[in-house]
């Protein structure tokens, strides 16, 4: 098993922390992981992205030309990464940030309205966990139990009471993600 993933959106959407939780979840299952952020000035108000690789074997390059899965949370990121999804790969986008949806026919396109769902339910802070839930539905590369373990490990103790809400968000994401015909 090897998953090469790009997560891209606006700075502040939780792109980097979502990648971090995914990487930590892989670590909990003793998998090989790398987390490579674009750490430039573009993180301030502009686009932010992170490459996460989860693999059973030693990982070569943390920098990739193509991805198995792209999670796209805003329009500029779609322009940048749509053509970098491997043929047959998966592109997941949030309808809130995307006015002109993806057009490629040689990949599987999924839509997840995580921003709307999070706002309606008053769970805005779990937006990225809803997206993560959608990803794990399609690419079950780690167990949900490992994600919860990762949250317990990375969140400061005073925030542990929020873990059940994050778990709920993952399940919501799994429910609301749907394939889109291009």
């Amino acid at each position: 098993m090897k998953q090469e993933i790009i997560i891209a959106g606006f700075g502040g959407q939780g792109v980097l922390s979502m990648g971090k939780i995914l990487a930590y979840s892989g670590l909990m299952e003793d998998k090989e992981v790398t987390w490579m952020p674009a750490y430039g000035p573009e993180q301030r108000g502009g686009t932010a992205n992170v490459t996460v690789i989860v693999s059973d074997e030693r990982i070569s390059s943390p920098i990739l030309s193509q991805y198995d899965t792209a999670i796209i949370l805003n329009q500029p990121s779609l322009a940048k990464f749509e053509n970098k999804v491997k043929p047959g790969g998966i592109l997941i986008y949030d309808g809130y940030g995307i006015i002109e949806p993806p057009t490629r026919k040689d990949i599987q396109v999924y839509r997840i309205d995580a921003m709307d769902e999070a706002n309606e339910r008053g769970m805005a802070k779990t937006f990225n966990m809803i997206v993560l839930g959608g990803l794990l539905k399609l690419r079950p590369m780690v167990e949900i139990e490992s994600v919860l373990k990762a949250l317990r490990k990375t969140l400061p103790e005073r925030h542990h009471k929020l873990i059940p809400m994050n778990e709920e968000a993952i399940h919501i994401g799994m429910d609301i993600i749907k394939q889109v015909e291009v």
Partner: protein
Amino acid sequence: MAEEVVLMKGNEAIAHAAIRFGVDGYFGYPITPQSEVLETLAEQKPWETTGMVVVQAESEVSAINMVYGGAATGKMVMTSSSSPGVSLKQEGISYLAGAELPCLVVNVMRGGPGLGTIQPSQADYFQTVKGGGHGDYRLIALAPASVQEMADFVGLAFDLAFKYRNPAILLADGVIGQMMEKVVLPEQRTRLTDEEVIARCPWAANGKTAGRKPNIITSLELDPAEMEKRNIHLQAKYAEIEANEVRYEEINCEDAEYLIVAFGSCARIAQKTMELARAEGIKVGLLRPITLWPFPSKAIAERAKQVKGILTVELNAGQMVEDVRLAVECKVPVEHFGRLGGIVPDPDEVVNALKTKLIK
């Protein structure tokens, strides 16, 4: 204590490894993309546990001269910075080399010249292995290619620095500093006691004891005949390091028809390049210098006998390629592929470079 596997950035791994290796002092000044070294030390507060001193100096120049002072007493001391900051340290590094003081300098390179950019680069290769400061000196230069090596090479660098009484440098870049990977940290060691330091460094200036001549730490010698002797001594030491301490890694070289030579982050990208090229039937191997000085010239010359051509992949305009060309003495074509100013090539670009520059 059982081995603990943790996930962290390369910069954080350096800080944790330094504390656990029993380093006595860190002196630095923040600069992207290596600020997490100092941040992690501040967060860990090792002065409360191991007694390690951590100082945010007023400048890079100040930090390197604090290193000089600490190293002169035989203590394990280090500094870290990124390219423009390491340029500022060059005078101090030359003095440390001249006075034969063991220490560790970490450079997490960013794009230059000048203030440049905060993005990854390997354009300080020349500065690191050819001088940078003035005079005939060498630094033991280690190039980590993973977060694990960021941690491991802290201890290795200090071991080599003290073995040869010579400054060591860890030459990383923004990719290795900023990415997170699994790492197993070394076990916590206690710092050496003053008695142990005196026993290890009989040359150090740590308080004169009755009956022995004063130890003098200096790089100054106004008598040219004496200064030449001192230089000859340094050159003999450098020859010994070249004979004993060359380190490199070879991957898929046995049947290789083409060879990539790359270090640090480029060696990681080149591994993926190799996978892609081999899937197309191109037999490529990778030779990764781990010590940039001493350089694995012999190993490269040996592989040159079997391959049709060599490509160096670097985040610069062609620096290490010169040492590779010297090593192979024009026996096979040696080409260079690099991106500049903070741009990191992806594996496809390198496959393309391999085809257009070498295979044709």
